[in-house]
């Protein structure tokens, strides 16, 4: 690891000041992505601006019309929130199934959504080709590499790295927004716009500007949240990234689907909303066959790579299975209200 300067601001303004300008400085939250990549010499910041001293960013509220999560709320704390579990089970389940208890205790929500790919070629500097790490150098994964962990949706000929996070899928499914502040002022970014497709510049992963800090993540409450579910398929029962996952939510009118939300994890280059699959469901009578049809529709445009073709049938089944649980929850909720 290179030597680096270390700063501990206590206010947002101070943090922005320290991270803006010409120096190579990055924010540090829990550090579970950042320090990991520094040890691997993949990220080599000249300075770290540790924002964990800014206590006001730790709070979160589960309001009746809006959920608000401070960027420094801990994964473990929010995962355990009983009100949130009732309001939107997909949001707690996606946190619960991420990483390990130790990591969840340390990692923060802002850092979580900005976690970086697990592409093994990105993480090991012995591979000289990686457009994300070293723009223009090529892509070891696409050039004869192992692509079993790579994206079948949203990739480009320059990079097929997969976005590995879980929570982001539940956020994108429910139209979350991200509040930020930076040298140029404050703004609100639809979560779906935060991450950008790799295209021909995979080194650019978000629209955040230098020195722009995430203040909070907010989600408007909709009925489909109550009957939501996050289903994560992985070979290891815990402490493993998704081979395929789905965050889904349903709002039913009798057995007719009024609103459907579907997002896909473990399969795409960015957090991925499956709009076409949602369309399959809306206005139709729910059934297992319909759930399977939606699952297939979610992957209609997928491009299998050499080693990731299994993700298409797997992902389709995971979407269908998640919808079955969401449907059961919607039915149980409807009974509860009767």
């Amino acid at each position, binding site marked *: *690891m*290179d030597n680096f300067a270390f700063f501990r601001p206590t206010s947002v303004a101070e943090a922005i000041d320290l991270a803006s300008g010409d120096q190579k400085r990055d924010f540090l939250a829990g550090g579970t992505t950042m320090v990991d990549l520094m040890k691997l*010499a993949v990220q080599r910041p000249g300075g770290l601006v540790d924002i964990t001293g800014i206590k006001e960013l730790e709070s979160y509220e589960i309001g009746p019309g809006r959920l608000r999560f401070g960027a420094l709320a801990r994964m473990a704390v929010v995962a355990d929130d009983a009100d949130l579990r009732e309001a939107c089970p997909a949001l707690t389940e996606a946190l619960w199934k991420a990483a*390990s208890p130790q990591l969840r205790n340390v990692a923060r929500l802002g850092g979580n959504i900005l976690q970086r790919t*697990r592409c*093994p070629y990105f993480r*090991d500097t*012995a*591979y*000289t080709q990686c457009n994300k790490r070293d723009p223009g150098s090529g892509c*070891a994964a696409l*050039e*004869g*590499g*192992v692509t*079993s962990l790579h994206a079948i949706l949203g990739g480009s000929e320059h990079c097929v790295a997969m976005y590995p996070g879980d929570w982001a899928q539940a956020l994108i499914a429910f139209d979350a927004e991200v509040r930020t502040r930076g040298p140029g002022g404050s703004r609100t970014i639809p979560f779906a716009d935060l991450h950008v497709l790799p295209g021909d510049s995979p080194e650019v992963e978000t629209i955040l500007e230098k020195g722009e800090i995430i203040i909070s993540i907010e989600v408007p409450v909709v009925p489909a949240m109550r009957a939501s579910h996050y*289903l*994560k*398929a*992985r*070979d*290891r*029962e*815990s*402490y*493993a990234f998704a*081979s395929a996952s789905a965050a889904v939510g349903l709002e039913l009118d009798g057995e007719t689907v009024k609103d459907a939300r579907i997002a896909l994890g473990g399969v795409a280059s960015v957090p991925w909303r499956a709009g076409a699959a949602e369309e399959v469901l809306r206005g139709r009578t729910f059934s297992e066959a319909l759930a399977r049809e939606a699952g297939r529709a979610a992957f209609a445009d997928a491009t299998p790579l050499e080693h990731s073709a*299994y993700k298409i*049938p*797997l992902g389709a*089944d*995971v979407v*269908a*299975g*998640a919808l*079955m649980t969401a449907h059961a929850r919607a039915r149980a909720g409807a009974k509860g209200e009767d």
Partner: protein
Amino acid sequence: MAQTINTEVTRTDARRKVTGAAHYAADFTPAGMLHGALATSRIAVGTLTGIDTAKAEAEPGVVAVFTHANLPDYKTVKGIYSGGPGSASFWPMEGTAIKYAGQPIAYVVAETAAAARRGAQLVEASYEEGEAHIAMDPAQSFIVGAEGDGEGMTLTKGDIAAGLAEAAQSVDVEYVTPFQHHNPMEMFAATAEWRGDRLTVWMPSQSVRTLRHGISAAYGLPETAVRVISPFVGGAFGSKAGITPYTMLTIAAAKAVGAPVRLIVTRQQMYTVATFRPESVQRFRLGADASGRLTAFEHVEIAQTSQFDEVVNPGTHMTRSMYASPNIHTEQRLARSDTNSGGFMRAPNEMQTFFGLEQAMDELALKLGMDPVELRRVNDTDRHPVAGVPFSSRSLMECFDAAKASFGWADRNAEPGSMTDGDWLVGYGCATATYPTNISPSAARVRMQATGHAFVELAAHDVGTGSYTIMAQIAAARLGLPVEACDVVMGEAHLPLAPISGGSTTAASAGSAVHLACLAVGAEVARQVSAMSEGPFAGVDPAQITLEDGMLRGPGGKSQPLVEALASTPRGEATAEGQYRHPALTDEALRRTYQGGYGVAGPVTPEMAMFAFGAEFAEVRVHRWTHEIRVPRLHGAFAAGTWLNRKTAHSQLMGGMVWGIGSALLEVTELDHTRARFLNANIAEYLIPVNADVREIRVEMLEEQDDYVNPLGVKGIGELGIVGTAAAIANAIHHATGKRLRRLPMRMSDLV
């Protein structure tokens, strides 16, 4: 005196380990010590055309950067597969040749570990790159050991074609197992300190005698000038047995800089600087008559090896020991690829071969329409199928019957895919486990004091298995002392010879030496008390006095506690050594062991075949939507002679089964074929089971008496538990889904 053998005794070092008071090799810091770090090769095959160390040398804190061009007095040893103590025959940094990715190319010494690692990252190398293949090509395999050369590597008994022709049913199947790495929790480390011509090496090791013998020979020093210290080992599983380049480089670097140097190998580098489990293909042709009796048994094993060694772990020797068959053919083959040399990994000959054999038996049972347990029963045998000698003890079917009952096998509907529970498909499967009883020569010294304490000294190792505890138990039982009063000193090369901690030898072999040393202490005390003018044994012929469980007994019903007798002698202390050698051990094997090598009697001697047995039953669940494979229940019953410590033995067997879950469902070292590199060299992406993957594991330990194996009647159990697990799980997956998975690991991607 309370019974100390065949009871549950908590590890004597447990408290020290959990409080941090147990010092592992890398915890020793000699004064003035510097830190080492390795830089490794990016390419797999080729030549180093240039190496620029200027940036590394300029890094603050860096003291020296060594490469092939400037490391004086770097010594190497012969590889283990050429009869030497080294982990491989090829030694990096002797020249510019690159033979595998991740091969050391430079050694940085610095004032801090961080500066050394930074320096290593700054070493710049250029290469002329050659074509490389990380995976073997089974079509290019070659046979090891010609038929009838006396070694028995390749072997034919009867006529396979005839056996298959008369079979009512047969299977002809191939199973594939991947590269796997040991991943011990404790990192590889070595600390070297020279004082003039005397050298001390601290290093986690499964064989301190191998290290000392090899290092002293390489440097032309007497063995007395080399100390090797390895008091605790945080897991080894076969990875810490041979002498590796990282050790010899550290020794040379310490000499060159004139200060002690410690190297801690990084997790990623641990995948390439030492050994691993080679990938393999297991081919089986089995034929059986209508009653299930085998008429033909053929097993061809193809294992991966490096370009410079022939890494043979003859798994066919184990499979052909398993079931009776008039016609047997086995063949051991190797195929080369561009890696470092593989080696042994927990159950090195058995894990992959029994994944094959025990699935092939299951496939055969299905074809015959037979219960898989009954197929094992009709093929059970009390004589070794090849050698014809009887088994010294064989409780295979007792194990099956016990595990079958505890598991509830009777509830199984034999039809594949017939059992479900909500969204889960449910399957039951079973498999045989076996492990050879390898008996090494060993020595031990016991010094007993009149205060009721004893030192037990031997160059054995506790690789995390509980060896300290069982040695104390054996001494306590023989000398009539509490376990806590027996202080066991191990893990140093100058102590009396004990075997390499490998092949599950330690308890049986070193334990027997401790037993004999205690009897020798009894004889020594008997000699002293018989020469005294008073006391119960005054004037008694010492040859008439025996030691039984802490009591000296003589003619005419005379008896006295050993500790009392000792207290009556003027010295108040007695020391004796025990030398254990199994009667079937050859002089050659004895010599090899004393020269730091691996020499054993068995598992097949001219009189007997010595094996431990077990049966494993798995319940598997496969999720309807996610296709995830889970193992809610695993039951094993085992028989392995005398249980010394029911608690640590239980842990060993359970630990083996946990590892078996990993082998079955998770573990694989992934390969980048284009760059010929191991891809997932870290324990985030190399998956091993976590707590949530391990649900109910039940271990039954059956009683078995075996007077032939050794004076204690002990068989090794360190590796037994893993042997049947993967096949039991595979058979259960087939039962749950109707799909036969013949490649490890078995993952959800195989079931979509």
